[in-house]
């Protein structure tokens, strides 16, 4: 380490010079798409300076072949790293394919459709293909986009399903959907019917009067049994009033004893009062 440190400045200087002088590149770049059944496929020439303007389409049974000659400063040479990298544009996912390189720098790789990882098959945009050439030493590496690949999928064959791996993170919000509250009909209708129902009461009274109803016996009844008649009828009205209080404000345990008390009064006074009514009937007055 001490050695390297001592020569570091010198090396730095050297590498700076070398960088200016030496860099990786390639020549005679060719790509071809070979269909399985033979037949003429697409053939294009590629270079490191300008990528192909139109994407190369790759069918589901086709094979993509890339051949090039890697050169270090114009000299054919074998680099340690010679990759063709396919990149999915949305996720930035990359798949590297190392080229088989000869001593002379001639390199070749063939990629068939089925070699592609599942994630890339689901890509919506063309894949970006770039060539990466680099090696040890001072020569500058090359990382150049060269062409785009458009994947043609066979509509008859479904794509292999890709399930995203589970990751911890926030989940979608859930809001409980409540059952809708029951709705009352329009108030006008309710009010109309309520009024109609209540209007029958005066109609009833009028028709009674029309039929000759009267309370002429009241004085007679009161005269004969004043206390029992007043309490009997009063207790009936009182009972209905208790019901009304129960409906508006009282609870059951307040109500029940009062009902018991009023009921007792009703029964006791009722026997007397109705006895008087009976006596009137037997007297032929009813």
């Amino acid at each position: 380490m001490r050695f390297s440190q001592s020569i570091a400045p010198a090396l730095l200087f050297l590498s700076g010079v070398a960088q200016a002088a030496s860099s990786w590149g390639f020549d005679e770049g060719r790509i071809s798409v070979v269909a399985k059944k033979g037949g003429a496929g697409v053939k294009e020439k590629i270079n490191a300076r300008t990528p192909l303007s139109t994407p190369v389409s790759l069918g589901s049974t086709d094979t993509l072949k890339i051949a090039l000659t890697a050169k270090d400063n114009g000299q054919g040479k074998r680099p340690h790293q010679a990759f063709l990298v396919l990149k999915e544009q949305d996720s930035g996912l990359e798949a590297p394919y190392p080229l088989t390189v000869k001593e002379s720098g001639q390199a070749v790789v063939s990629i068939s459709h089925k070699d592609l990882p599942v994630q890339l098959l689901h890509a919506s945009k063309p894949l970006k293909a770039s060539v990466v050439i680099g090696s040890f030493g001072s020569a500058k590496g090359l990382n150049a986009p060269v062409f785009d690949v458009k994947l043609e999928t066979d509509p008859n064959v479904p794509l292999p399903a890709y399930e995203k791996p589970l990751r911890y993170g926030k989940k979608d919000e859930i809001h409980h959907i409540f059952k809708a509250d029951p709705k009352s009909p329009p108030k006008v209708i309710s009010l109309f019917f309520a009024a109609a129902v209540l209007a029958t009461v005066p109609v009833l009274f009028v028709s009674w009067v029309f039929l000759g109803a009267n309370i002429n016996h009241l004085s007679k009844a009161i005269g004969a049994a004043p206390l029992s008649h007043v309490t009997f009828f009063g207790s009936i009205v009182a009972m209905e009033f208790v019901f009304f209080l129960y409906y508006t404000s009282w609870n059951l345990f307040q109500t029940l004893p009062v009902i018991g008390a009023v009921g007792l009064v009703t029964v006791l006074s009722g026997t007397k009062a109705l006895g008087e009514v009976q006596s009137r009937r037997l007297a032929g007055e009813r």
Partner: protein
Amino acid sequence: MMRSPLLSFFAFLFAALCVSAVSTTGNRVLAILDDVAEKAIYSKFLGDLEGRGFQLTFETPKSESLALFKLGERVYDHVIFFPTKTKGLGPNLTPNILVQFLNANGNILQTLSSGVSTPNSLVSFLSEVGIELPVDRTGLVVDHFSYDTSSAADSHDVLLLPPPAPIRSDIKNLFSAGAAKDQVLAFPRGVGAVLGSSENLTPILRAPRTAYSYNPKEQSEVVDDLFAAGQQLSLVSAFQALNSARLVLLGSAELLQDKWFDADVTKPDGTTHKTFNREFAKRLSAWAFQELGVLRVNWIEHRLNEVGGSNETNPGIYRIKNDVKYTISLSEYAYDKWSAFSVPKNDVLQLEFSMLSPFHRLPLKFDESHSSPEASAYSVSFKLPDQHGIFNFKVNYKRPLLSNMEEKNTVSVRHMAHDEWPRSFVISGAWPWIAGIGATVTGWIAFCALWMYSAPPADYKKESKKTQ
């Protein structure tokens, strides 16, 4: 009377001093090295650890006294594995024991080095948690596009990387926050790993896009069989078990050595940079040993949120459609103190109200009125579903690089009681029927009076007398 609170305060202060500046789970660290003398080259890193309150013990794998457990109890809280040349680690460090150590809430920081092949025991332990190492066990990561020209001009195996940013936008920046702009992380002669698909694995540092791993012994001329390249290679990986025990795999042990702390490195473009290694080593070990990214639940409170409702805290029973408020108070640990936890920018803390499946999953909002510098409260108000049964208030906050948190509070949700329904006169639809009862009762009372007191008409009386 006055003395006892004062005394207890001093006792508390003393206790606080004793455990000052240390991990939330303990301070006993075991460092395993080939040779105890090797610790000299890591002196700054180990000194930083001791400065933070850890007690270090050094052992070699061959040591007889080496044991992670004694009488079934953990003897150490954390273990650091430095590269060792021995093929096996002996009977005291089998993969099984290491898994047990994680299960017992122990934490492991494991380092690799390209020059030294990784022991069998550690390889199988790593594959147990889903981390795959190069087959030959001596992979070397190189990048011909970003290396230190001053120390690795030819071999390109000292990678220069920007301080690691979070892999996702909703993860807290634990490792590179506050790094100077021109600082770089030097990653000398390291091994890259490939992570499985488990959600408990997180890459802390990924290799650059142009980097790749090769076997320097067999593939020095040509890379015929690629292990992994680019971002698939994880240089520093984190595994956090469900019990929040942590394992960090650092691909380059050399990164922790003194010579790379605050050193100068030169990029291929000729620019010179300071290394970020010392700070990174500190943060990485702090995360591994539960000093960073540790969450604590201080308290949880749920209550009725209705005007005139009961003010009881955490009642066991609610009614359907009750309005309730749920509040949770959280703190996060950083090196030596608990402070308020703030949810990362693009992340949310969520509350689930669930029976078998969630009925509600709602975001919890920061609640300033219950927060302090030491604790932050998050709360949400919502209406309980119209379904009765046994429910859970559940906060299941599991995020990469934060300790796991799963809080459940069970409550029953009951039906409406008979006197909790709206009264009939409140509902306009019931008015005609109320009127119906009213009309019936009125008519009936009048009828009773008529029946008792109505005199028959005069003519009819005569008629009926005749017939009788």
